[in-house]
């Protein structure tokens, strides 16, 4: 009867019920029809599902990202990226990617990156003669780098669900994140070279101009350095680092006079709402996950996967394809909440490191935010850049190939993710 639960959820989501309501509604409707478990048993888990100090890092990093945006840091980072890579063929396409890499060290939610830094990027790209559609497309694609390079909201949720260390996951994301940016830069270069995009090159900046832009961006660049140093030394937990970086952003904003109390209040309000609509999904998914567990779905799925093959490479391929398909129609957090408790035990059985699998899963689900019909980043960018959905999709399409190749590379080359945490923490 578990198919009934999935069908109800699918119908509710298709009827545009918010995911945070569709998850408990489908669970409660299922219990009403099947009468298998008293609803109280699953409702009780909703609030207690949030009892986690580690999850507290999510609103703190969202706050830090919002504050850096309000404090005009996004524009400074963009100017610095222009000075560094604006002269390469593809120009502001590369700048967009580099700015996202730098900004990813301050914020951990792709949607926030797309809507915050993205607004600056799209405006500047259009001003330099790029089409609004390509500007929106490269901004959407580059914003998924944010949750791969630490800090990362989605990684924190995975860490809690899979019972792995957040610092391990954060460090494991750095090399793949940088590599992904290189894949995307190669794609932009190729698009510009073959004339598929109009990409006016920015004149090479003098050494003095580069130095000035570096000096202006330097205080912001301290934030990711501070974060990585904190993780490496174990001086503070990721949650504490989130709070410290938020306070640093406030001091920096007021010191540079780019932040005032109005913007501060706006950042706080935006954080409250973003946290509310994002983290509530974790609580909302607990009744759903509880029913899956009570019906023995994890064991059945594990048995099914292992009956197809006990070769880790084959199982990873199947899981990747399944996640990519689910990612096109479901919310990232909801998939994590349902899939992680089911898949991680299988991974452990097959000897696949859950930290490596976490990186694969995060990248996979982030690609899902860019794929039709329900790619959330595509919707965000149609709003930010005021472009049509189909036109945006056409410009995003050339990036699917490098993203899929990148996913395969990360999946079948665990050392890419694991070398850094292994080396630093001696795992």
């Amino acid at each position: 009867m578990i198919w009934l639960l999935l069908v109800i959820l699918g119908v509710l989501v298709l009827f545009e019920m918010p995911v945070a309501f569709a998850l408990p509604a489908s669970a409660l409707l299922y219990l009403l029809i099947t009468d298998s478990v008293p609803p109280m048993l699953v409702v009780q888990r909703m609030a207690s599902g949030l009892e986690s100090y580690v999850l507290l890092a999510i609103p703190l990093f969202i706050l830090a990202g919002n504050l850096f945006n309000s404090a005009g840091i996004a524009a400074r980072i963009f100017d610095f990226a222009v000075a560094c890579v604006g002269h390469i063929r593809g120009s502001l396409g590369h700048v967009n990617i580099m700015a996202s890499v730098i900004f990813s060290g301050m914020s951990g939610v792709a949607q926030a990156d797309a809507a915050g830094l993205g607004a600056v990027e799209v405006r500047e790209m259009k001003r330099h003669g790029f089409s609004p559609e390509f500007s929106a497309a490269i901004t959407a694609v580059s914003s998924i780098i944010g949750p791969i390079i630490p800090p990362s909201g989605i990684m924190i949720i995975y860490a809690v669900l899979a019972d792995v260390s957040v610092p391990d996951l954060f460090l494991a994301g750095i090399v793949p994140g940088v590599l992904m940016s290189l894949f995307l830069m190669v794609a932009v270069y190729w698009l510009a070279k073959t004339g598929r995009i109009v990409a006016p090159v920015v004149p090479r900046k003098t050494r003095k101009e580069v130095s000035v832009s570096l000096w202006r961006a330097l205080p912001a660049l301290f934030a990711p350095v501070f974060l990585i140093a904190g993780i490496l030394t174990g001086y503070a937990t990721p949650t504490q680092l989130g709070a410290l970086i938020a306070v640093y952003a406030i001091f920096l904003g007021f010191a540079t006079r780019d932040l005032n109390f109005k913007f501060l209040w706006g950042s706080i309000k935006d954080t409250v709402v973003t946290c509310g609509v994002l983290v509530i999904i974790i609580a909302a998914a607990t009744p759903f996950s509880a029913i899956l567990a009570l019906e023995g779905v994890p064991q059945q799925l594990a048995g099914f996967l292992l009956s197809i093959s006990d070769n880790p490479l084959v199982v990873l391929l199947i899981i990747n394809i399944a996640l990519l398909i689910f990612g096109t129609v479901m919310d990232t957090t909801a998939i994590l909440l349902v899939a992680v408790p089911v898949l991680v035990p299988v991974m452990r059985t097959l000897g696949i490191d859950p930290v490596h699998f976490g990186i694969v899963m995060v990248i996979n689900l982030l690609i899902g935010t860019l794929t039709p019909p329900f790619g959330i980043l595509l919707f965000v960018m149609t709003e930010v850049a005021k472009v049509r959905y189909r036109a945006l999709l056409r410009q995003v399409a050339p990036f699917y190939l490098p993203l899929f190749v990148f996913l395969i590379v990360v999946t079948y080359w665990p050392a890419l993710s694991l070398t850094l945490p292994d080396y630093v923490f001696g795992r």
Partner: protein
Amino acid sequence: MTRFRSLVRLVLRRIGQVEMVVAAMILMGIVAMIVAQVLLNAGLGNPITWELEAGAYGLVWLTFLGASIGLKYMRHVTIASFVGKLPIRLGSAVRAVTFALMLWTLYVLIRELSPIMEIEARSMTVALPIELPRSYFFSVPLMISCALMVPTLLLYLLEALLGVFGAKQDDLLKPIMGSRP
């Protein structure tokens, strides 16, 4: 009917503003507490022992209040499918059914939470300076969040039904607190 809806919207907006102030205080309180913890631990070697527990409870309250505020901004994660492309009356009917189902979900949650609150109230917090029933940090915030969302959803349901019966769409189903925080 228009004046009635305007009045309800005004009341809900005021409630939302109060919720926002409370949630903002919780968020900034958490930040201040964690920074104080780090400084006290590093400077005096005297950490705040209840920081972990208070932080986790703060997140619960922040999330549930944020969820209620998010509904007033219509910012909950929704996957846009075909409803927006339906004829106006049919689209409004689908939305009315959706809102009714959301209200039913809240009703079941509130009904089931009452006995849970009693059970949770029997155990107390562990490390906080003041001993409080644990229900204050689990079932109570969830119950309050659900209760705060009910009037918001009732208004949205009413407006969807007005849409079904051919009312002008311009001022229907707009976010109560505006489109952006």
